[in-house]
């Protein structure tokens, strides 16, 4: 057996792990930190232009090798397991939650209040924006006030987005550019965005991804990164409720077992693998899994529902100018307290829906060459907007992640199974919320002489979170607001799993903000040198 000793053992190598490690090295220089990631490191920026080309032209995976064939969750949203995690190929959207997310119970009588004040979380949102490098413009709503400006000026709206903004604003709903972790100027050693239109594989590094942070930390020899290493169990002390070791296996050397020892362990493995590891680590004293005296590990799995529409608009749109940039309205982040609860964001993108080249006309006749081009040009006279809303829905206690004994990896460990279930009050208002959404789409369409072409409901919950929810009471939560587990004094969970509810807009910035707040508390476990 190979043994490693460190001060902090971080399990998971995604965005939360990267920024946690970065902040810890700043707060406590000299701390020895080991980050363990089951997937590979893909530190090959120089190849990304070619990966982008192969993805665009052939549909190949733009991140070759970014998954583990026998390590997947049923009901999981992504197969990505690599150093950098799902934020390797995120879109970079860095929209904020709002105070309502932290006070659902006291404001609306729904779900629960988060065990921290919005004003405090907002400060960590600013820190997250600085570390990620976010470009944005302030919201026009007073409730969205910021304590610091964005670190970078907003991305210029393309001609298409300006046209769509003009159209959408006629509805009386104000739209602005979405804040993004994309460089509108050189930032933190990374290049300015050059509008490659493929942010899911940014070939220049202008869109933040955690591999850059890891590479900086490794170059400065501030952390150790053990990739391709799967942590299979956390081991408790014989008599005390502390974690003494993480047992792992290197996927390249499967016969060699590895043990990591540290005074502090941090799970930064996201909403799937953090609760999964706690459940896998069950023992005689914690037969339902570590940190699980409340019975809530793998419960309250959250996310937001969504609904999309394509709306034909009277605007000259040139599809492809900047397809990954969008508009957002935060108008519906507030739900009047004297009216039924409806809360959502609203996004608008350029689109070519209904205006793609087609082989056959409406009668089925084959179109070739000039005929095809003429048909395409005729249908491209008007523009299309893609509109989507993320709706605030709340999880039921039985929204679960469990161990699936029927699906095991090559080491015989049961894999996670995620089954989202919505709370009764969320289900009760679904039809009313949908009716509201249809009204919003109609209002948008009507404002610009438009026509709704298509409406579709999402069939999964996006930006999933939860599974180790935070709270003030050990009986109703897994950890406190710092991710410190109630049951184990040296075990933390950070980022997405700690959210009790998943809001109504992209979650990554909030996951990172909470992690940075946790980092301050974790650093406090160690004296300043």
């Amino acid at each position: 057996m190979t043994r490693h000793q460190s001060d902090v053992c971080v399990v998971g190598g995604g965005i939360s792990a990267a920024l946690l490690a970065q902040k810890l090295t700043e707060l406590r220089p000299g701390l020895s930190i080991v980050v363990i990631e089951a997937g590979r490191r893909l530190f090959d920026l120089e190849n990304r232009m070619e990966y982008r080309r192969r993805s665009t032209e052939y549909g190949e995976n733009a991140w070759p090798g970014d998954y583990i064939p026998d390590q997947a969750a049923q009901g999981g949203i992504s197969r990505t397991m690599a150093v950098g995690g799902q934020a390797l190929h995120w879109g970079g959207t860095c929209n904020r939650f709002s105070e309502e997310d932290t006070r659902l119970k006291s404001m609306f009588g729904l779900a629960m209040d988060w065990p921290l004040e919005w004003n405090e979380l907002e400060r960590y949102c600013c820190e997250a924006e600085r570390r990620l490098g976010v470009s944005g413009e302030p919201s026009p709503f007073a409730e969205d006030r910021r304590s610091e400006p964005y670190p970078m000026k907003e991305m210029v709206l393309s001609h298409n987005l300006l046209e769509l903004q003009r159209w959408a604003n006629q509805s009386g709903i104000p739209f602005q550019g979405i804040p993004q972790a994309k460089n509108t100027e050189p930032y933190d050693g990374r290049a300015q965005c050059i509008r490659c239109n493929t942010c899911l594989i940014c070939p220049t590094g202008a869109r933040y991804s955690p591999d850059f942070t890891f590479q900086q930390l490794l170059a400065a020899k501030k952390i150790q990164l053990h990739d391709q290493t799967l942590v299979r169990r956390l081991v408790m002390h014989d008599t005390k409720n502390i974690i003494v070791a993480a047992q792992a296996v290197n996927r390249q050397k499967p016969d060699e077992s590895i043990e990591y020892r540290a005074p502090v362990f941090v799970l930064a493995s996201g909403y799937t693998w953090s609760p999964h590891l706690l459940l896998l680590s069950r023992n005689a004293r914690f037969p339902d899994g570590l940190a699980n005296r409340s019975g809530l590990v793998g419960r309250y799995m959250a996310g937001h529902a969504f609904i999309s529409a394509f709306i034909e608009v009277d605007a000259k749109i040139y599809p492809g100018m900047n397809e990954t940039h969008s508009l957002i309205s935060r108008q519906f982040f507030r739900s009047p307290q004297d009216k039924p609860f409806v809360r959502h964001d609203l996004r608008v993108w350029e689109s070519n829906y209904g205006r793609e080249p087609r082989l056959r006309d409406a009668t089925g006749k084959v179109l070739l060459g000039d005929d095809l081009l003429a048909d395409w040009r005729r249908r491209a006279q008007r523009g299309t907007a893609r509109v989507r809303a993320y709706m605030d829905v709340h999880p039921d206690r039985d929204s679960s992640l469990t161990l699936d004994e029927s699906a095991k990896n090559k080491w015989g460990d049961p894999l996670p199974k995620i089954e989202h279930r919505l709370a009764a009050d969320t289900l009760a208002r679904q039809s009313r919320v949908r009716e509201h959404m249809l009204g919003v789409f109609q209002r948008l369409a009507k404002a610009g002489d438009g026509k709704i072409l298509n409406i579709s409901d999402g069939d999964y919950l996006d930006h999933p979170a939860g599974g180790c929810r935070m709270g003030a009471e050990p009986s109703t939560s897994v950890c406190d607001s710092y991710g410190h587990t109630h049951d184990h004094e040296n075990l933390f969970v950070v980022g997405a799993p700690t959210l009790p509810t998943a809001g109504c807009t992209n979650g990554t910035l909030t996951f990172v903000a909470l992690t940075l707040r946790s980092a301050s508390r974790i650093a406090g476990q160690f004296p300043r040198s």
Partner: protein
Amino acid sequence: MTRRNLLQWLAALPIPALQVWAQTAMFPGEHGPLLSEIGAVVLPRELGRAGTDRVVEQFERHVREYRPGADTDHGYGVTRLRVKPASPAPAYLRQLASIKTPISAETIAAALDAAGVKELPRFAEGKHVAADLMAFYFHGSEANDLCYRAAIGRDQCRGLEGSDHPPASLKGMSG
């Protein structure tokens, strides 16, 4: 032995995997002129014959650089591991060998009907070489520009400056 001769020799060996590899590497073999004729019919005349021949050459290279077994995107929301299927080159060669000549819009349409091609595939799938050639071009950035008569450059890295204005008209065209 020249590279071409070597590939022809390999393609003749009774080893299926080697045949497919060689047929892909030497695509379109002896059918270059025929594929050029097809290109002249299925691609816009606005490109001119030199333009359609250029697109056909790009398509031929695209086929030669195809990588069977390469991972495809595994999806988001609903995930699935998939790999690119076998090279479409052998199917293309069979289709080229059997297509009726002289090439015309009618013969192409009949071939597409017979092959059951209903729409342009997103990526080459081998149902019919004419459909895949069209998909290769019409789903591309250059065709998008031609449709809108504007230098949108969808698949290029273009910088942010000036993107708040409509893209410039294509040379010689009004927007």
